[in-house]
């Protein structure tokens, strides 16, 4: 993302101009834009004009519109952000108050005006505009009959393709059917990897193939053999990019284990995904060893924060996307106060596997500096409302 300008008043209101450059930036924009914000962007609108004789013609015009956002839609697969709202700046084509749906486009400037730019939003702008090259990693988690081809970007894990096939078991006299099924499955996975939309070998740093047992080795052998057979330069040239690691299953959340593998960490240590997994793991370890030092749920976190006890705060970005402005303010306040007290705040992307898990875990969790057993005793009746709210 490129920052064009930033004009924010002392009271926090103001506008920022941005140019999204990559699909990933749409995700950042999605997290930035909240309902009620005003967005100015260039768009295409169908305009009907009536001539003096009464015949009407409709044609599409490109125009710049400003709308107050009422509805936000994000397509994770295609990384498209659609904003629906009423027009607030009238021009020659569009009347005041007319509804329009903006499709934010790559490489086109948009301006976002908020009534209040809080610290979390500003931080999001900073990270989005951080020019550090972000390394993408492709990962294939598989088991016999099930595979997920995922793309791990700094703030998102995208399932590009899911292959779910039924492979007949081995049985007396029917061994070929099993092997035939396997080969068919491997072929499907290979095709999924080769689809350029899924894995772009120019961009990805490495392709992780993870599976239990020997499936990964079998698959890799199969793929290379096929590549030699069909003289597939793409695969043969990028052979070194493949990394075979162990995973317990072919389901998506086993990516979590994959990202903790030392061999993988060595390659992708700078990605956000790996860091988040590690952090969440440390939270769980703390919960096991010293349950009085690890808490989750807003109520507990609030109390711990009051006692300035929070060392590391983990919070899902989903909480900041909530529609209720009051709630968002509360979460922002927690983040700010933890920072003030010297604590570490990590905002998890809810698009990563670890973030998904944190979302389930009320979306907010913390490791404390000192044990607070009194929190544990206080009956925890909260939590449900938060996790069920979505």
């Amino acid at each position, binding site marked *: 993302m490129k920052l064009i300008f930033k004009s924010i008043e002392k009271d926090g209101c103001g506008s920022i101009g941005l140019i999204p450059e990559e699909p990933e930036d749409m995700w950042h924009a999605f997290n930035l834009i909240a309902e009620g914000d005003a967005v100015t962007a260039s768009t295409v609108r169908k305009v009907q004009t009536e001539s003096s004789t009464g015949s009407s013609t409709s044609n599409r015009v490109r125009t710049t519109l400003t709308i107050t956002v009422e509805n936000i839609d994000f397509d994770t697969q295609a990384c498209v952000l659609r904003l629906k709202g009423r027009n607030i700046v009238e021009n020659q084509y569009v009347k005041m108050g007319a509804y329009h749906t903006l499709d934010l486009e790559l490489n086109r400037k948009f301006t976002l005006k908020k009534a209040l730019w809080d610290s979390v939003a500003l931080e999001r702008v900073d990270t989005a505009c951080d020019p550090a090259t972000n390394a993408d990693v492709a990962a294939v988690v598989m088991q016999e009959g099930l595979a997920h081809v995922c793309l791990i970007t700094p703030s998102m894990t995208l399932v590009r393709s899911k292959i779910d096939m039924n492979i007949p*078991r081995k049985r007396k006299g029917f061994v070929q059917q099993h*092997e035939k099924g396997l080969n068919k499955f491997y072929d499907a996975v290979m095709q999924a990897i080769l689809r350029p939309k899924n894995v772009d070998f120019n961009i990805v740093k490495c392709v992780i193939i993870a599976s239990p047992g020997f499936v990964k080795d079998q698959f890799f052998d199969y793929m290379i053999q096929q590549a030699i057979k069909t003289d597939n330069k793409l695969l043969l040239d990028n052979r070194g990019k493949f990394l075979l690691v162990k995973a317990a299953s072919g389901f998506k959340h086993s990516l979590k284990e994959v990202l903790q593998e030392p061999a993988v960490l060595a390659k992708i240590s700078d990605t956000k995904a790996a860091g988040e997994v590690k952090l969440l793991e440390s939270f769980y370890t703390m919960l096991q060893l010293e349950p009085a030092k690890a808490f*989750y749920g807003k109520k507990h976190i609030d109390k711990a924060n009051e006692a300035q006890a929070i060392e590391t705060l983990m919070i899902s970005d989903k909480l900041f996307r909530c529609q209720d402005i009051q709630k968002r303010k509360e979460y922002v306040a927690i983040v700010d106060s933890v920072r003030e007290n010297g604590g570490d705040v990590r905002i998890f992307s809810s698009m990563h596997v670890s973030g998904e898990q944190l979302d*389930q*875990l009320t979306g907010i969790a913390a490791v404390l500096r000192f044990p607070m057993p009194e929190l*544990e005793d206080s009956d925890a009746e909260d939590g449900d409302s938060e996790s069920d709210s979505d």
Partner: protein
Amino acid sequence: MARHRNVRNRHYSDEYYDEDLYGNSVEEDSCLSPSDTAQWMYDRSRNQQAISHFLDSANDIQEESEDEHPNISQPALERRESTDIRSLNLDEENEAKLMSCLDALRDILGDTISENILIQSVLKHNFDYDKALDEILNNNKSKQHGVPKVEPAKPTLTIDPLKPAAVISVPKVIATNLEPKSMAIVKGFKIGLSEDSGSRPQTPRDQSPCTERAAIKTEQIEEVKTPKVKENKVDPNKQYNQERGSDKDHLYIVVIGHVDAGKSTLMGRLLCDLGEVSQKTLHKYEQESKKIGKQSFMYAWVLDETGEERVRGITMDVGRAQFETKTKHVIILDAPGHADFIPNMITGAGQADVALLVIDATRGEFESGFDLGGQTREHALLVRSLGVSQLAVAVNKLDTSNWSQERFNEITKKLKSFLKQAGFKDSDVTYVPCSGLTGENLIKPPNEPELLQWYNGPCLLDVIDNFNVPERPVSKPLRMSVNDVFKGTGSGFCVSGRIENGMLSKGDKVLICPTKEMAEVRSISLNDLSSNVGFAGDQVVATISGVEMQNVSVGCVLSDPIQQVPVTSRFEARIVVFNVKVPITKGFPVLIHHQSLVESANIVKLKALLNKSTGELIKKKPRCLGNNSVAVVEIEVCRPICVERYKDVKELGRVMLRVAGVTIAAGLVTDIVTT
């Protein structure tokens, strides 16, 4: 059809040819002389007898079982002359006639009688529907005579009264295909027919040489009543008794244990000794395994069939085989021991009635398999959680420690305390010292003097024979969990699985859940023999039609269309947490294993923490669940699955939760949240 047979025959001869080739190539390819190779290769069996020695003994057994053999194959015989309508070369008009006759016959008879017989009799009587019906009913009656002949030596009387007494008969559960109105008709015919009693023996069973004529006479009196039982097909219990009462009980046994404990070898050896594997095949395995330098795997190859498994020398998927003991028909499920294949092992164990735990007695091996992280513990815990309560422990490879009693006692002592903790009763666990590779104490009492000094217990086969067969809930509504879907020969496709509840007969309409599609059962095969009906507890392969193959997947449940299996994506379960590295919290992503199904799920709510022994409530809504705790949780599955409350159907009410390749908890479904 005929062409198929040609192919099959040719294939056989190819195999023989192959074998010769292998024999040659061994000599030609190896530049080392056999004595040289022997010098460089470790061969555990070297100091034992030569392999061929055992082959001879296997031969002996085969001779013995010979007279048993025809009996077993008998039921299949009548179906083997399968008649396909197409193969009859009828012209269109006649075919139409045949079809209408068949439909009319089926209206009356339901699906109790196989289509082949119907077709045959219709053709015989030149499409005369009445005559054909007469003949069929007559034959039917004569078939009743045939049933007890199959095994006259067995005292059927002792079994029959036991079963109906134990199973609570639920009359409302009705096999769907027989309508009561047609039964009356059948009855009418029967009476008339039994009077003229002109039944011509036509089925092969009738023509079969019966072994003991004397025994039949005593049972003749009883037989007069049996036709009535047949009419009452609505009562599955009676039908079960009728079909199976005289048969040996079927017992499914899963073989578990740590990697390389010798599970496959032990079972392979057992099968060889029992004569279930032909010498030719065994010889082939011996040659081939020798060729790749793994002669000790020759017995394991009986069960490990895929190339991958043989090359790596480990079992990867559950292997199946069967044999007979004195009182039982045993089906073994050879589970993989490797940690990566535990999902497969769970599939196997979910279908088993009892388990055989194989322990490697070699010094150091037992310890590594038993210590935390070894599969001995996890397997034992898993089978216990899957409802297996009877266990035999085969202390294998005891020959490596010279049949030392000390070693045996050391192992059993450690296991005893662990198994007790895992929930096995001491009385339900039997320990047997044995050796899979040398075949010691498998089917015959031991010969080794060192072992004889201190061991006088039963051999492995006797232990298996002594297992109790659990109750089969045949009268409950049908539930069959699918563990494999594959293309069979001919039309339709096959699903294999275990019937948990109720019975499945040919022609039944079943509902496939969770997709909720109706399908029709075309044929059923039970342990590789085709059959008309399968009962609870059976492993069957059913050919079904009426649904797309893609819509049936592993983990589906074939259910009674009226009393359906609940389909849900959210349910409440009481779980027992095993040893976990990190505590279980809300939102914990897990893999849920339910029968053969593996699905990703989330623990969405921790409802209550319970006292482990008393079940009392300790804490409502706990923050997390640590080691060895018992709790009530709510689980949400990504896709809807078929679960039952544990109190309704035990097998479908059990779930395993696994994370990162480790089993973290076992659960029982207590409530189903309707979605």
